[in-house]
């Protein structure tokens, strides 16, 4: 029998054995953030559009106007993040068998590329509609197209908007699933991440719409704003619950996210600034029925949403990828 090896001191080479960080940095973080906003703004606008209350028309138009530019920014961010940006189209088309399409629905990145493309269609239609509506586009063809669409049976419109909302939800949530679809510790284990990013997409989108409507001089007590603010409260509550669920499910694996500098950012930036404070402000608001810093609350929510994506993307890649990596 060979000598007992139990008490041996050994040094493991720092070689392979742990899934590598993919070196996703700020392009991806911003993509996740802006993508959530584009998806959320569209879905909220479409939902209000479906409800069809005249006083929400401003909200609907704002949401529709935001979705397409947001989506274009996302596409740009994704393309410059590639090692070979000129080959971005390889994501959708089999480059060796043009024009055969390529979809691997079990691969979140492949699925996500298609979600972006499909969502782009809805965002584009909504954008053109909103611009024509606002009387900004005096182009006959567009006006006639919009008028034609208006004449469609309402069932078609409802189905179209419902599908658009679905596409929005897919875009808002898949970014979290994309991280789960790796073998990198923390991401791999973070099953509630898709839901968390989706809830955050909703809360940040409500916040952005509120901010823009406030800027336009709408009163905080305006029913159109109050309903957004109420829905934002709910989204924040769901988000907070998902954060708790995530931490419970991760257990000890959560360490990179909850300790150290990233941990400080997580607790202060995500939990306190992004969730607890806005929720407290919201409760106070409805109790006193007085306007308590709706604008401040919206800003806090937006900051929290960005910090959430920063911490979740970067902390599990530390220390091989520095926090400022693009």
């Amino acid at each position: 029998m060979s000598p007992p090896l139990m008490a041996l001191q050994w040094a493991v080479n720092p070689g392979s054995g742990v899934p590598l960080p993919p070196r996703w940095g700020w392009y991806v973080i911003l993509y996740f953030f802006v993508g959530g906003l584009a998806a959320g703004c569209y879905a909220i606008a479409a939902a209000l559009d479906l409800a069809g209350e005249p006083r929400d028309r401003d909200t609907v138009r704002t949401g529709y106007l935001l979705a397409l530019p947001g989506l274009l920014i996302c596409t740009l961010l994704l393309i410059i993040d590639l090692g070979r940006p000129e080959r971005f189209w390889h994501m959708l088309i089999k480059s060796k068998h043009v024009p055969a399409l390529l979809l691997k629905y079990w691969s979140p990145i492949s699925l996500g590329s298609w979600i972006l493309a499909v969502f782009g269609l809805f965002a584009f239609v909504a954008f053109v509609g909103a611009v024509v509506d606002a009387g900004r586009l005096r182009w006959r063809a567009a006006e006639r197209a919009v008028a034609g669409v208006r004449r469609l049976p309402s069932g078609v419109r409802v189905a179209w908007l419902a599908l658009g909302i679905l596409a929005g939800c897919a875009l808002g949530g898949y970014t979290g699933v994309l991280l789960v679809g790796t073998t990198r510790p923390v991401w791999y284990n973070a099953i509630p991440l898709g839901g968390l990013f989706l809830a955050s997409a909703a809360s940040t989108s409500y916040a952005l719409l509120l901010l823009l409507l406030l800027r336009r001089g709408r009163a905080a007590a305006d029913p159109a704003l109050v309903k957004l603010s109420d829905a934002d409260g709910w989204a924040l509550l769901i988000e907070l619950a998902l954060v708790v669920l995530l931490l419970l499910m991760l257990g000890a694996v959560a360490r990179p996210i909850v300790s150290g500098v990233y941990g400080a950012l997580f607790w202060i930036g995500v939990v306190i600034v992004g969730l607890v404070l806005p929720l407290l402000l919201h409760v106070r608001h409805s109790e006193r029925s007085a306007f308590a810093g709706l604008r401040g609350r919206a800003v806090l929510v937006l900051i929290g949403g960005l910090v959430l994506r920063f911490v979740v993307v970067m902390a599990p890649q530390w220390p091989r990828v520095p926090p400022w990596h693009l």
Partner: protein
Amino acid sequence: MAKGFYTDTTVCIGCKACQVACHQWNGLPAEEPGERELTGDSYDNTGTLSALNWRHVKFIEQIPEDRHQNGFLDGSRWLMMSDVCKHCVHAGCLEVCPTGAIIRTEFDSVFIQTDVCNGCRACLAACPFGVVDIGSDGKAHKCTLCYDRLQHGMEPACAQACPTDSIRFGEVSELMALAEQRAADLGAHGIQAQIYGKDDIVGGLNCFYLLVDKPEVYGLPAKPELPSSNVAAALGGSAATAALLAITGAVSFRKRRMDDMSRDESAPEDEP
């Protein structure tokens, strides 16, 4: 007809002939331009598998706490292992690659078509062994199992160069039988050896190892995972969240409407 490597770590002498042969055949430069970094870690000076190192010889020094326990350095071991892409039966990298750049060849090996890869880096985070890496050309690189040589009936360069036959190339089932035999022979001499890469490791590795210690000691994960295992659950969670958001959104939107409606209804009564 799956082809692969059987790497018998018990006969590896750490000469790195495999690394050199791999660099030569595949035209891989010694390093990225810039400073030469020495790891200071045993005889290792490449550190990891990378875009430029598709073979990596690991040196694991096991030395007792008390070196004079039973005579000087008695009970110490120096383990060596030539690491490589495992050409997994269920390959995480292939699973996630959104461009279809990563394919399974007629030899059942996993091959990256660099003319298709667009550098999204999904495969880096998907490989449970940390094998694929992105090169300075913005594309993903790893061992090809010498696809070009196989197509011409040759064996991979590393296997041909290995002077101790620590790396053997061939039909996976035949190699596995060889490894089983070797493990049994070692067992008869009181040396515990186990195969890493049977079906229990992500469905089997076409390039597997014979180890004399726990996989973690060699920097191999004891229970590697597939990137897709949790995706369905995560999608379900997202769908449930979407439903919750839709319900709470509808409640908030509706509630206002009801409140307004009740106010509207009560309004006429206020008027005289």
